[in-house]
């Protein structure tokens, strides 16, 4: 799998290859303050969400990881939807409350400790159970585990890959489109497209 140089997207944002609207969207994520006070979740539940997000998107390579929990908290507070919901799922706020509670129930059942007190390997074993829809916990009788995992995974993924640093990681520079793209065929790169190294 290729590795791309760091700083590509950040450098492009300083140029006129990016429109003002595009720059505004990306820079807002890049410069979001590290400290975030949850407004929808209480402090403990928010820390639990952060811990789960850190196992789904582990970032040992980053001094300051891309924060994924703030967008969830902010969305639930505002009540934003994305146009649909599985009919088998409760409304989003209820789903997160039940789902995060269920993760703690699974932690207690397997390790007799809350999720936050487990080591990474133990936490990963619980995420694996959740992904396989095999985690224990009474909340799962009210919430389909596979759908909850899918929805949470998709939401965290949207936040992660919308971030300029994650876009640098995968070599995406599609935001630098002011001049358009002339070299679009196989193996055709333009000078502003970074090359990956194995």
């Amino acid at each position, binding site marked *: 799998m290729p590795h791309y140089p760091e700083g590509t997207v950040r450098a492009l944002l300083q140029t006129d290859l990016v429109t*003002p609207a595009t720059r505004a*969207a990306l820079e807002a994520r890049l410069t979001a303050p590290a400290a975030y006070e949850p407004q929808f979740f209480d402090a403990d539940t928010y820390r639990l969400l952060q811990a789960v997000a850190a196992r789904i998107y582990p970032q040992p390579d980053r001094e300051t990881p891309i924060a994924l929990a703030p967008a969830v908290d902010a969305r639930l507070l505002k009540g934003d939807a994305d146009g649909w*919901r599985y009919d088998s799922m409760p409304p989003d706020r209820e789903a997160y409350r039940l789902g995060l509670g269920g993760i703690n129930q699974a932690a207690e059942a397997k390790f007799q400790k809350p999720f936050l007190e487990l080591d990474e390997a133990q936490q990963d074993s619980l995420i694996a159970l959740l992904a396989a829809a095999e985690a224990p916990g009474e909340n799962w009788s009210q919430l389909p585990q596979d759908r909850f995992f899918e929805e949470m*995974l998709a939401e965290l993924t949207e936040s992660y890959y919308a971030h300029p640093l994650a876009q640098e990681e995968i070599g995406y520079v599609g935001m630098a489109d002011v001049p358009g793209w002339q070299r679009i065929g196989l193996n055709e790169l333009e000078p502003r497209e970074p090359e990956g190294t194995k």
Partner: protein
Amino acid sequence: MPDEETLEEGTLTPTQPEIQDPLLREILEENDLQADPSRNPLEQPAPLPDPDEVVDCLVIGTGAGGAPLLARLAQAGRRVVALEAGVRHDPKTEFATDEKAQNFLFWNDERLSAGKNPVAFGKNNSGIGYGGSTLHYTAYTPRAHRGDLTLHTEFGEGVDWPFGIEELEPYYEELEHFMGISGPTPYPWDPGRRKGYPLAPLPLNGAAQLMERACAKLGIKTSPAANAALSARYYQEGVGWREACTNRGFCQAGCSTGAKASMDVTFLPLAEQYGAEIRLGAYVTEIERDARGHVTAVVYEQGGRTVRQRCRNLFLCAGAIETPRLLLLNELALNSGQVGKHFMAHVGMQVWGTFPEDIRPYKGIPGGLISEDTHRPKDADFVGGYLLQSIGVMPVTFATQMVRQRKLWGQPLRDYMRDYNHIAGINVLGDCLPHADNFVELSDEKDARGVAKPRVHFTAQENEQRMNRHAERTMRQIWEAAGAKDIWAFERYAHIIGTARMGTSASEAVVDPNGRAFDVPNLYICDNSVFPSALSVNPALTIMALSLRTADKFLENQKA
């Protein structure tokens, strides 16, 4: 929505828990502005419409169903008004090349998705704003085939359309030339066309070249596809010169250059040039009738005001979910029992693979290459057929649907996504048979306006499953021949079709072959809801063709 008590555990009680609906919140914010216009001098409230005025034609929705007929009726000198729930954007300054920032293009009011194959809405198929879903359609514009309209005659299953392809062909021609569609001439799977495409095809990107190469090995014929995006600058009446596509690959999250023929750069400015009035932020709640059952007026919410607009004729063009939702809420045109019934969604299986080549899936028109050799496959064990296309994809869209399918997490997820620039996809677009188990209804759950949310039931039936298997097999062969590793398939369903079907009998259809409601003589319906069958091609071009035809039939009928 959770009540206060269930919220206590684990969450703070939000300050305004009742407002889960972003559209409503926007309106409330607008109200605040209007209460004190000095806060926003650029957005003074529009004058209230004259309550006594009766317009000839009132159109609900400005997408592919509403916009063409709006222009046609205005050009014929009618007093026409369109109501659009969303607002108007300036794509050049407001559209970001950023998927998340473009979420305002999608109809994000929550719909409940039920059945064994719950359909994704929002960005998958539903739009809002001046131009409706065409603001984010892929611009893939193949014509329907003759046989798509006669499934029942050919197979004894599904339903026939009440007219043949001859009725649509003149409109296809007109649309291709009006919008400046780029495509191959002659068209390989329909070489006898009277007129070719006005512009040459768009260039092929990496995924298209891979598919072309592999299909050549396998003996599958391919061609650059017809796309409603300009391969050269083009003069647009009511707009001026539209510039050629710059290959920015972002069609599904909004074209910022005007190269894509969405309604905001084609039919809507034309309609306005001929005097059509388009009211934005107008969310329709009621359709009023007189004692005879004729529509007399529409009531809508706009900027916190409730407005009534009287009309002689109503054109309902709100799409295959909101159209039946409005009919059901207003108990209108329900005599056939067909409103909301026979919801269809195209078989849209995708197959992805990882290649040694550099692909950069964000460049070029997404649907570059097409094959229609699978329109009636010789070894088919199903009714109907499908088309094959190469696909480009933006990273957030790709990553979110990939995790839904593969459930990757942790380091393997980040590792897989590092190969984004080496991943290419193909997908199919296949017919779907109408089935009694697939339908739209009003749920007991209310949105923040107090209006019942729609619940959409969809289960892929035996025919769709057979087509899925055939399509997956074919696409895996193609991707193996192209040299892909780590091939995986994503079963999905695209487009929303049916729910207010067109037919010849008032007991079996909602609208007649001219688009007029059997029960309500001055109500016309024109969008994907009237399709009797789903077709084996993307629906946008056919919706527009029906829209022009509906306007012409209406005008003919008025003369008579």
